[in-house]
């Protein structure tokens, strides 16, 4: 339970967040006939330095929720408070200073890096744009970041296509860390990677959290990975959060049927257990 001193707001507090996409039809003029309830009223919070895992399958609304939290798309209704300050519906100008504190890592390491820019540029751009550093100081900071995420400072001048998937994901992480954010939203950061690399990236994220005191909103469909890295877990289904609690609670004593179904579906890499489970299914 949250027993911080009164007046210490959670880093991120989302209340009844809703995002509907209208479906329009009509002969001459489009009228809204129905809507896709991508996010249908969810509430959660992320405390400083902790990791909240958001688990759901495709179509659950978890990616839409991320975008709505970051105000990359405008929420239909609901409240999003960052450090106590309401940002739901905030415009681009208002969000600009906040972008330093809230960053995002994306799923596809092959699509989320601009192939025409060098690595040094990709990681350094946020610093430049927020006028934090420039010139040789900028270069030094970027090289430090690259080393911190397990790359080499020599990689500064290379292009994304020269790297493997795991390395590209590290570049994405370096970029997200450049502005020393307080919250990093990770949208399926390891699903596109080979199994052995997934573990590396998960461990890296863990280490960085300890070192920089980052808070993570970790969104994924793999409940095993989510459980490993999260302090608390929220399970999403059809736009709603069906269960929320500590990672151990949710995974060991799930209360909601969907959560149970999700857990039961995870393949267990243990033939004897799996045979036992099969006879009970």
């Amino acid at each position, binding site marked *: 339970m949250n027993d911080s001193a009164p007046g210490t707001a959670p880093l991120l507090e989302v209340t009844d967040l809703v995002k509907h996409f209208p479906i329009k039809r*009509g*002969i*001459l003029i489009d009228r809204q006939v129905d809507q896709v309830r991508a996010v249908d009223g969810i509430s959660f919070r992320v405390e400083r330095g902790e990791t909240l895992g958001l688990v759901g399958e*495709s*179509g659950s609304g978890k990616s839409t929720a991320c975008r709505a939290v970051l105000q990359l798309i405008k929420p239909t209704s609901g409240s999003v408070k960052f450090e106590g300050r309401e940002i739901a519906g905030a415009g681009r100008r208002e969000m600009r200073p906040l972008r330093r504190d809230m960053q995002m890592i994306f799923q596809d390491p092959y699509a989320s890096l601009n192939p025409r820019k060098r690595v040094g540029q990709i990681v350094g751009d946020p610093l430049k744009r927020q006028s934090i550093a420039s010139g040789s100081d900028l270069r030094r900071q970027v090289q430090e970041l690259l080393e911190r995420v397990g790359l080499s400072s020599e990689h500064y001048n290379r292009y994304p296509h020269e790297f493997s998937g795991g390395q590209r994901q590290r570049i994405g992480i370096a970029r997200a860390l450049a502005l020393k954010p307080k919250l990093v939203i990770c949208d399926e950061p390891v699903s596109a990677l080979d199994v052995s690399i997934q573990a590396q990236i998960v461990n890296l994220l863990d280490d960085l959290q300890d070192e920089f005191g980052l808070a993570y909103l970790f969104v994924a469909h793999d409940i095993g990975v989510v459980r490993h890295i999260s302090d608390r877990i929220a399970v999403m289904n059809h736009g709603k959060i069906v269960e929320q609690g500590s990672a151990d609670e949710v995974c060991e004593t799930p209360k909601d049927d969907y959560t149970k179904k999700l857990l039961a579906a995870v393949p267990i890499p243990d033939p004897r257990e799996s045979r036992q489970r099969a006879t009970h299914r």
Partner: protein
Amino acid sequence: MARFIVRRLVGMVAVLFAVSVIVFVVFMVVPKQNPAQTLAGKNATPLLVKSIEEEWGFDESLPVQYTTMMKKVFTGELTSYKPRLPVSDRIVEGIPATFSLTIGAAIIWLFFGLLLGYLSAIRAGGWLDRILTGVSIAGISLPVFLLAPVLIYFFADKLEIFPNGQYVPFEEDPVEWLKHLILPWVTLAVLSIGFYSRVLRSNMLDVMNEDYVRTARAKGLSERQVMTRHVLRNSLIPVITLFGLDFGATIAGTAIITEVIFSIDGIGNYAAEAVAKFELPPIMGVALYGAFFVVFVNGLVDIAYAYLDPRVRLGESAE
């Protein structure tokens, strides 16, 4: 379906209206000699010019002139200034020529363009592909105003196989009709053959890498079945829509240079004449005719596309 047709009709009316206004405004704004002056000819007295202005309504305000003209368009009374001939008649007369030219050329460019594209794609990277690519690019690069006179010079003047111009109506003499159209057809087709073969080749190469082509092979289909039923079928969809747009534009009278060089009395020729004489009624007539066909053919293309690609027809996935 009903929704689609209604939207298209409304769109068409809006486009035609916009075209008429734009043509009118441009014509009025562009510096030119007073049309009444031109009609009056040399040694005209101001009085004569004035009476001509009144007769034609050139002295009225612009909105009034516009409405009067539009009324004439609908009643078919729109005439050119000099000689005083009905615009609609000229357009109707020009239709057989332009249609013959367009349809014939279209058949040729479609057939050869697709053939060359198909051969290039299945032998991609080989010597045949390289040769055909060169031919295509040459075709695309040759301007009509160069190609046409060169063809006329060789085949009409020197070798005397084909006549060097004019249009002979089909009812009059089918053989002559054909002979007179061959060079113009080739002229129009060469550019498009090059273009279509590149487009088909590129589409086919993309499609051949698609997963469902691999599935088709894994099912045990013969190479020929894989190529025709899966690769070609899917590669042709964008080509057909492209063809529709090209065809629509050409039938709308954009083959102006070809028609003029070969002295074919079609809409394109009429358009050239109208601009040379710079008279508003024929220009307006040709513009409206052209706009109508472009919108109409576009509509047909959209319907064809929906038929060919069920994803468009039924909307995206059922998730």
